[in-house]
């Protein structure tokens, strides 16, 4: 038996994660992190989600705590999110929350309180290769979340478990339903928790930073339109680019925030053969050669070769927005071998 602090968001996955550990006879305490004090779609302080998590914990007969990590969430997730936009980069706040909150601050807190580690309801697994622990794909490939926890390394993974990683979402929901948990049919959360569906990203950022109008040009430098806020434009985007319609579909191929210029081109011009990585961290031994690369949370993987900090696609792929997380998998698409940001 071991003791686990289970991060319970109030969703079905973490509810079942707690239930499974409990059923295996472990000592389990549920905890909901209060991260965001502002407006959200689930009410102030996400009280409704905390209520769900607490009620599930009661149904499972485990203790439930609430930890207030709003200070770190602001400093390590929200502020960098705003700052990234200011610099014209594409942040992934959920990944930063996992990196700094769930698997750093919460993990440290768990250890300080005498727990063996932290369990979460992520759809992913842990695999050991050459005595090194790696984040591995979840059994339900359609729901796989290895991308958002890719940063976890050998040492951390010793103190982390993903109890539902070997099950499909369908099985998870059925288990929740069999146990009579109130979260059984709760919809999956899709969006960034601090961005409301009413205000959206633009309204959130507008309150926290000044934006500048930008010029939209084609590859030849000809002005073809204008945008209200150049900081909100992302490479690969094709909507809301101003200018006249009718022409061939245009995509953003480059954003120069300093010059307030957005360059657009046809889909073909967005394709690149290689790109550079920032802050590359290997899960085990550094890899040179063939990998599979995933650049968005539920995006497809594409084969590439990696050499030092350069990814060379085997076939050209759409340009990856700077700041986007890039996760490298082994050629069997089973385990995470490394992770970085697109430069």
């Amino acid at each position: 038996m071991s003791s686990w602090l289970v991060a319970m968001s109030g969703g079905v996955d973490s509810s079942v994660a707690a239930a499974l550990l409990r059923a295996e006879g472990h000592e389990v305490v549920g905890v909901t992190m209060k991260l965001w004090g502002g407006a959200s779609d689930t009410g102030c302080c996400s009280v409704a989600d905390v209520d769900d998590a607490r009620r599930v914990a009661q149904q499972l007969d485990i203790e439930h705590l609430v930890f207030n990590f709003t200070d770190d969430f602001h400093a390590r997730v929200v502020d960098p999110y705003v700052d990234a936009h200011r610099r014209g980069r594409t942040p992934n706040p959920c990944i930063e929350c996992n990196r700094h909150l769930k698997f750093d601050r919460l993990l440290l807190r768990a250890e300080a309180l005498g727990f063996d580690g932290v369990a979460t309801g992520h759809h992913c697994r842990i695999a050991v290769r050459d005595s090194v622990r790696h984040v591995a794909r979840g059994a339900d490939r359609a729901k796989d979340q290895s991308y958002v926890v890719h940063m976890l390394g050998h040492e951390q993974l010793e103190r982390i478990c993903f109890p539902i990683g070997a099950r499909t979402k369908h099985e998870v929901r059925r288990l929740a339903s069999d146990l009579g948990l109130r979260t059984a049919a709760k919809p999956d959360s899709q969006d960034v928790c601090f961005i409301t569906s009413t205000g959206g990203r633009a309204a959130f950022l507008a309150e926290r930073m000044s934006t500048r109008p930008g010029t939209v040009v084609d590859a030849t430098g000809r002005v073809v339109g204008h945008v209200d806020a150049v900081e909100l434009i992302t490479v690969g985007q094709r909507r809301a680019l101003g200018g006249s319609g009718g022409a061939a579909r245009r995509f953003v191929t480059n954003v120069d925030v300093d010059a307030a210029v957005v360059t657009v081109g046809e889909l073909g011009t967005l394709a690149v053969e290689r790109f550079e990585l920032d802050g590359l961290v290997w899960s085990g031994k550094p890899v040179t050669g063939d990998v599979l690369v995933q650049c968005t949370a539920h995006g497809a993987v594409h084969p590439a070769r990696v050499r030092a900090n350069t990814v060379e696609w085997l076939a050209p792929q759409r340009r990856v927005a700077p700041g986007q997380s890039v996760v490298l998998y082994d050629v069997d698409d089973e385990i995470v071998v490394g992770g970085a940001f697109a430069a």
Partner: protein
Amino acid sequence: MAPMAYLDHAASTPMRPEAVAAMLPFLTERYANPSGGHALARDARRAIDEARDDVARCLGVDAGEVVFCGDGTEADNMAVFGVMRRAGDDAVAVCSAIEHHAVLHPVEHTGGRVVGVDRHGRIDLDRLADALDGSVKLVSVMAVNNEVGSVQPLAEVAALVRERAPDALLHTDAIQVHQWLDTAEVCRPFDLASISGHKFGGPKGAGVLIVRKGVTLEPLVLGGGQERDRRSGTQNVAGIAALATAMVSTAESREVEVKRLGGLRDDLVDGLAATIEGLVETVPRDHKVAGNAHVCIEGVESEAILYLLEKGGVFASAGSSCSSGAISMSHVLTAMGVEAPVGIGAVRLTFGWASTAADVERALEVLPAAVAQLRRKRSP
């Protein structure tokens, strides 16, 4: 069951057995509506009248000045909104920055003024003087702070208000008083005072607002006109009977209990200070009530400490909890100028009628060990 130490009496007390006994008949055979006309109704009505007399005697007021209501929060809201809704559009309410949210939020809601406190958690009389003028129609200052236990200089507050804002009504949230001080004495200069039953061995869901003769409030709850039109709704007969019983018992045993519990509190704080480095007593003992031990412990966080305390059978609390249950640095400590690194290590241990020396022993075993564990691991 493992030995347990309940040291959270400022949050709520266990009910006194005599209060439970006073309550039970009204949950069983004496169930009638006190507003009715028949014998059973008159029986319930009589219980309320007797309770009202007991409460009036304890609080040094006339029975007609006692208004029963749902709880302390409701009493506070009745006072603030009840005054302000009659006071005209330009009227201003004033309160201290360390009020319970049941006063602070209503005062803020009316656009009122909030007055700062000193580092010992007592209202700053100079700043209060600055906040007072002819437009002020209500001043609300709590008698004893619920978190840090500081006793407010109510007599000085009253004198200042009478001088600078002669039209203002004076309200005090006296919810943390009765166990420790003579409520009648404390509330004497005030027009309105809030009391809550479960802070001194009574039940939850029973409160009192003292409304002095000649003071008229706009009622918040309209209906059958109970409590002389000041708070409609069928009275909680069982709760009222139990509140009165607990109030009388508390008043009768107060002198002895304050000595006994103050001694336990001193043993606890002295013991903690001797074994835990970097522990600060938030408010000096001569400025606060006998049952409050509020300390700030450097280098640890309340949430982590409270969990380990609970594991060791010690039940305490920290700052104010929001509705999600998350603990944050309280508005009281912030108003007192306590810096965040110290304030996030706040622990409130509060005594009550059921406390014993064994509780102190238990806390002295568990708390220093918990701090040591967290410091070893450098609790995040």
